[in-house]
């Protein structure tokens, strides 16, 4: 690590999608959700697949970590990801801020 790491949004989104596709088995009474965490300690954005079957334990599977704190990069990755999946996204610890480009609230 160290130095500037170029992040290719499409590639990152593809990787996240490939990993979540393994877990998305579309069962009845089961909620699937992608958690996107603003990790201030690690200075990263972390992606998890959250799987909650009704009346059962929840599971949270690590999908990927973006080594950046740049919201603009995250916005591109999210946009690329949303072209591949319609699973709902849950943004954690972002506070009340807007996306740099679309200017919509992050929620």
């Amino acid at each position, binding site marked *: 690590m160290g130095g500037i790491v170029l992040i290719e949004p499409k590639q990152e989104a593809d*990787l996240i999608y490939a*990993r979540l596709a393994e877990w998305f088995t579309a069962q009845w009474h089961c909620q699937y959700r992608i*958690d996107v*965490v*603003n*990790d*201030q*300690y*690690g200075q990263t954005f*972390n992606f*998890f697949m959250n799987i*909650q079957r*009704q*009346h*059962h*334990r*929840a*599971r*949270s*599977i*690590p*999908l*990927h*970590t973006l080594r950046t704190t740049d919201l603009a990069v995250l916005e591109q990755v999210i946009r690329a990801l949303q072209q591949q999946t319609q699973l709902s996204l849950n943004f*954690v*610890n972002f506070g009340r801020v807007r996306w740099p480009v679309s200017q919509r609230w992050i929620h």
Partner: protein
Amino acid sequence: MDYQNEPHGLFFMIDNKSFYASVESAARGLNPLRSVIVVMSEADNTGSGLVLAASPMAKKLFGISNVSRQYEVPDDPRILVVPPRMNLYIQENLKINKIFREYVADSDLFPYSIDESILDMTKSWRLFGSTPEQVARRIQLRIRREMGLYTTVGIGENPVQAKLALDLQAKHDHELIGRLTYESFPRAIWPITNLESVWSIGHRTAAHLQRLGIHSMRDLAMVNPYELRAEMGLIGAQLFALAWGIDRSQLHQLRLAKEKSWSNSQVLPRDYQIQQEIELVIREIGQQTTSRMRHHHQQAGCVSLGIGLARTGEADDGRSGFHHSCRIEPTDNVQAIAAALLRLFRQHWEGQAIRNISVGLSRLNTSRGLQLDIFQEPHRQIKNERFDRVIDELRDKFGKTAVIPASSLMPGGTMLRRAALVGGHNGGNSFD
């Protein structure tokens, strides 16, 4: 007891509260003390799943403990189950130790396990506060702020006091700090009657002490040390010192093991009964161990094989397995070592189902090039030697699975699946 000649230093033993679970909580933006997280390994050989760590809340609300089995964890929607990421924990441990190095010289820091470190603060603590507790608090807050993790600190005048202060006091303290001194030791430790809760006293030692009429730390402190030593050997003397909070170890002068050896072992994912399959795994482990040894330019003069029987296959005489070793011509050649292992196996195996295999290489010496054997064709020997080197280089460069024996693809092989594991558990995603 006269403590005047005992070492009087200041030691911190710092551990991370539910380390794996806390790291996973922080990564998900959750508070490690409030989240209900269970880190569950589902590696092949953990059966249905094994709890590697549970967050403090998971322990409190559901009574989940480490090494619980999957079926012991209640199926409650409030519980979040996550897979382990061993590589991440190693990285986090390195970061924490880097922070510790700002408080002690490198030579005064002794990482003890993946989530515990000993800091010899004797020389440096006054730089950071007016009391040891204040310094401990400062380190705690720093780690909380920078990494989102809670740490527990045991303070003592020597390492064993720090360890006991950590285990017996800090973990139950509101501030997560505990402190023992020679002076406070009898008051704090002697009333303890559950001997197994004291570091270094295991189940069997506790039972042995009970048989001797020792039912509390006070009893242990009052016993005649010479009698205890005569009864239990060196351990007796150590236990007596423990009861008085005495520890004369000099961490700076680490003692090296008399003779080093290399070994690997694994628990098999199921009972193995077919000879071919068992031998395949023995070969794989033999190869792994040999390759580690070769990286240190050593040759082995002795191989040993340990076999643990499956519960169903336990021999009629009640043995749970066997362990044998044999001398060989010093070598670092995989084929030769595998052949010796298989010889041992065939001599002693009587067809039982097995669940556990370990391989050890000892009587090591430095390899000084190839010693030709006059009874074998020399060109063949040189070629074998070169072959091993090339394989090693390929694996160093392209990873452990760059070249594998075709036999590892046969039923029963465990190498491919284990190659991605760290300490036997999932290392985490590869391109993170």
